[in-house]
């Protein structure tokens, strides 16, 4: 059970990291124009 004393603070850090990732995603416009990016892979170049 002692490992929990490491894991819980670790999870807090992870949450903050994920939040950072979400921040990047929102402000890079990753949640806008979702269809278009899916099409891009089908293009030749």
């Amino acid at each position, binding site marked *: 059970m002692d490992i929990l004393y490491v894991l819980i603070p670790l999870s807090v850090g992870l*949450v903050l990291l994920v939040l950072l990732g979400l*921040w990047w995603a929102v402000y890079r416009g990753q949640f806008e124009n979702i269809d278009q990016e899916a099409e891009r892979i089908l293009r030749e170049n």
Partner: protein
Amino acid sequence: MSKSFSAPATSAPLPQAQGVSAEQLHSVENLLDDPAEWPAFGRPVESAGEGNHWESHLVIEGMHCATCALTIEDALRAVPGIAQVDVSAATQRARVVWAADATRPSQWLNAVRKAGYRALPAVDEAARAQRVRENRRALWRLLVAGFCMMQVMMYAWPAYIAQPGDLSVEMESLLRWASWVITLPVVLFACGPFFSSALADVCHRRISMDLPVALGMAITFGVSTLGTFQPEGLFGREVYYDSLTMFVFFLLTGRWLELRLRERTAGALEAVMNRLPDSIERRSGDGSFVRVPVRRLAVGDVVRVLPGEAFPSDGRLTAGSSRVDEALLTGESAPRWRTVGASVCAGSINLEAAVEMEVVRLGADTRFGEIVALMESASLQKPRLAQLADRVARPFLIFVLLAALAALLWWWPRDPQHALMVAVSVLIVTCPCALSLATPVAMLSAAGALAREGVLVRNLQALETLAGVDTVVFDKTGTLTLDRMVLRHTEATGGLSPSTALELAAALARHSLHPVSRELVAAAEQALPQGAPSWDVSEVVEIPGRGLSAQVRTISGTGPVRTLLLGSAEHVGVALPERDCVQVCMGWAEDVVSRRVSARFELDEQLRGDAEISLRALAHAGIAVQILSGDRSASVGRVARRAGIANWRGDCTPADKLAALCALQANGHRVAMVGDGLNDGPVLAAAHVSFAFGSAVPLARLRSDFVMLGGQLRLIAQSIVLARKTLRVVRQNLWWAAGYNALCVPLAIAGWMPAWLAGLGMATSSLLVVLNAARLARAMPPLAPLVEAQAQCTSLVHAPMRA
């Protein structure tokens, strides 16, 4: 706007000017090569060592899907000097970064056109960028609250399920620490709008929705923080991080969805307002056409409007003819044919061929400008029910604060911590915003639906009154009939066949502008085969109020020259039996003595195509219909009989109309008046609600609550049905908001409502109100089922109808 806007166009030296083709000269874009125009749709970019770069924004037309966006991106990238391209299919926008010393807008705009799309400079970019920023921040707040809520829930879980002794004290305080850390961003960032708006309220000594909510949040966080760091303190060791993050998440979700819903309706209005083109081809001194920005047009300019373009101003066609889509301005979806001399409205769209137009009115003076101004002012009004709700909301909020305080004091002696959480629930569960939103949201949705059909609501309050109307009075027969007459019957005597008679009459009538003459010509063109004229008409004389006379002979020149008379009975010199219509006679001058007539034409007003169905729909809605007209009794009676209106009066002076209207109102009727909105000011003002058919009148001069832009009569019945529906939705909303608060506030005071449930309840409550109102925006109530239902009813039971 940048100052360089107003600067006169200076021709900048074009790089690669020799490469400009003739097609490009004609193209939309050349004027955009003028650096004075660049700030209007973009801004310079400072990028180190790369010279003079500009970032420009475009609206792309003709995109259907995501693939189109990529095609455009490829096309633009192929142009030398383009540094960066982003095309978005969802917003139909493009962002281009280009080097000013390597390329010019015309070149890359041309590339877009060659790819099969149309690009226009986006001048509203600043406003749009602002909206995107706000949307992103709202989404980001929602994500922070949601994600942190999930994590806090996990840390709270062990405390809920642990048996006594399962959880060591250290472990429990570690979990609380973790929860506190994760809750911090929620309180500091996600709750930001609540706190800042509450703070502004306190500074301005007023009270609003956000004050109790922010208080609730602050108290919950404070109690939980004390519980974490001072477990032995006054408020015990209980923590509420899970409740706090949960209700913040619910509230933000509610707000975010509300924002999206409202943006959708606002977007529709914006689409209407942005209808005018940015630039247009103007004829310059030497007769060639040069593209200029619309804001540089002046009255009297001649401009060329290409197919697919919108007319930039009100004007008169000077060359060419085309079909024009005026749906925005009249609600009429069928395109209209416009030829030289016809007037066209700003904002309507040229569909078929390039036409030239002389500018008559510009900007705010145009009909389009009037409509936009009217829509804007109506959307800012507060109807009576909304004012009432706002007046109630304030004391209600004060009551909530006092109730929370009372609950706190009541529970305090037993358990200070429980007392605080009860107070928090009371603060959060109340939802006066549902109360304030109930009316305006519904009425604006309805007004938007009406505007799409060509009915402008000048006064939101009138929607409420309209719902109670039980009598519709038409104050002009012209509102029921088309503005032209129709040839009903031709009677030829004296050796002429009816078709020859009509041909002869039309040959004369062609020289006159009288409505009857025009109808005869139209009828002849419709009924007779188009061929070489067989009559030679000369020396046409028109005697106003009586008729025409002319010298007529066959075109082959074989017959004798005879004098033909066309007009009223006394003009031709005969006496005719009284008939229920307008009669036109035709006779030879030599027959006047014998009082013989060669042909007689019966013309008649024609009811509007949708008059019958509209009147039936009105009857079905339980609404009585009357005509009070200033026209001659005979013609009023004719129209009334044809329309099936039993209750009519002709030859009314305005005073008569007013008296009749007041008598109706004294009998307890609620009257809607339908007129042309101009002549009968006092009558329109005295009616409870008024409609004006304002197709040819400056809108600002109309004194009515509703303006019908098109001539569709059925919209009156539909508006009434929609108004009733709107009021029903308003009542539902108000009842829901009142009922919700009446039920939940006592529950919260009694301590039976946990804080998270309170947050969920409040978010749902205001969302329900907005969603309920959004039903109204979808479509106008169709008439057909109403009328069919009525037909069935009347055939089954012969009882008086009621709605």
